[in-house]
């Protein structure tokens, strides 16, 4: 009877150990799943897009002055919704971006054109992601390539095109809130930049693109049309591969 008790105890202990080991492995696998990694990357890219679109508005004249107060408030609300979607409320960018966007759209941009024709991210590579064991927070490192292409009024009354693309190194901390990853800390530094005309040579289409960017236009519509013809995705000569092995697996750890 005593021997049976010892045997039973050993069996229970072994079962617990097997459950703990396999359960833990399953759990870590789940935490470090491709789905989570993709969601973390999407959150970072989304957050970066919100920064790139700061001060953006839609206006046929290029001027914010021609919009009604209601239209301006609608555009501010749309931007705020983007901030809500990608940043946690305690993130410094959450407050900064909302306040600055409102500052620009309600006054600082009045009387001048600062019109974002297009902006966004061309590529992103996370080199590492570290999750906490409860899978509610993560810290990621990597690189991101973004751009902003905009028309700007000059003091002489003309309109210039400013188009820049920057490759950044990034560190981000994220929290999973109601099943959605949001950025709570985001810092970056510039590694490389591109403007139309960089690395241009006589045989390259970039010469014409550089000319577009160097030209001062007499009307907003003319400049807008020319800016729309710049395809940063195709023209940009900086790539993530220049600084990081994009084929390498993202290093994922769980602590």
């Amino acid at each position, binding site marked *: 009877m005593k021997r049976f008790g010892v045997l039973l105890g050993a069996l229970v202990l072994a079962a617990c150990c097997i459950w703990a080991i396999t359960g833990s492995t399953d759990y870590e696998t789940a935490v470090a799943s491709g789905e989570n990694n993709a969601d973390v990357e999407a959150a970072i890219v989304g957050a970066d897009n919100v920064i790139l679109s700061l001060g953006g508005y839609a206006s046929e004249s290029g001027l914010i002055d021609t919009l009604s107060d209601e239209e301006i408030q609608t555009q501010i609300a749309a931007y705020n919704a983007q901030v809500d979607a990608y940043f946690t409320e305690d993130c410094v960018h959450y407050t900064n971006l909302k306040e600055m966007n409102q500052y620009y759209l309600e006054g600082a941009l009045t009387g001048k054109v600062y019109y974002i024709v297009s902006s966004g991210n061309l590529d992103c590579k996370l080199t590492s992601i570290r999750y906490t064991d409860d899978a509610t927070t993560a810290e990621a490192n990597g690189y991101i390539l973004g751009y902003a292409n905009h028309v700007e009024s000059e*003091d002489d009354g003309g309109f210039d095109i400013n188009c820049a693309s920057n490759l950044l*190194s990034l560190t981000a901390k994220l929290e999973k809130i109601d099943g959605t990853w949001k950025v709570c800390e985001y810092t970056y530094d510039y590694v490389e930049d591109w403007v139309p005309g960089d690395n241009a040579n006589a045989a390259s289409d970039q010469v014409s693109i550089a000319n577009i960017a160097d030209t001062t236009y007499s009307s907003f519509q003319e400049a807008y049309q020319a800016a729309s013809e710049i395809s940063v995705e195709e023209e940009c000569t900086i790539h993530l591969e220049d600084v990081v092995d994009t084929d390498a697996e993202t290093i994922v750890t769980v602590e």
Partner: protein
Amino acid sequence: MMKRKIVARSFLVRATALAGAVALFATSILAYNGSNAVSYSDRHALNPSYLYSYYDGADCANFVSQCLMAGGMTTNSTWTMNSTAWINADALKNYLRDNNLATKIGSWSKNGTPEPYKTYAYIDNSANMTASDVGRVVVFYDWESDGIMNHAALFVANNSATWDSTADGNVTGDLINQHTKNRKRVIWNADKRNDRALYTRIYAFRIN
């Protein structure tokens, strides 16, 4: 007799202390030479010195620190080669400010920004710095508008033509030298080559 000796010794101690203080003051004020800082900066903006470590992808403050040392700023246990205050832009700013080695002379951004880190809109490519500021002003960049400096550069020329018209356009203005990305005599506000210029705040600190 004894009393006279004590008075004489006391006078000697005070005179020595005063002379030391004056020498220290003179060293910190007179020794700094902006031209020397600019010369070093021009020489190594595109060709980093092999005498120092090179922080690939993050060499800006390290480079500015080298320039300041070339200008005559003396090192100490806090600000010495490869120390945090030497290689980190925010730590360098804090070191210069907190030790009264530099004073903030301006803050700018693309269209001005509200408090808590208020900045004024830069109207053109001039930061309104003068010829006497050349080599004596460190320009700090806060990419994320959070009050923490992410980048540093040295002011090297006022109202001059940029050496990189592709990056800046064919313009004149105040110029800086910097590392990461390594650039020589380019427009200080980085306006044309910054895809998030609206979110960038720039601060200038003049060496005292």
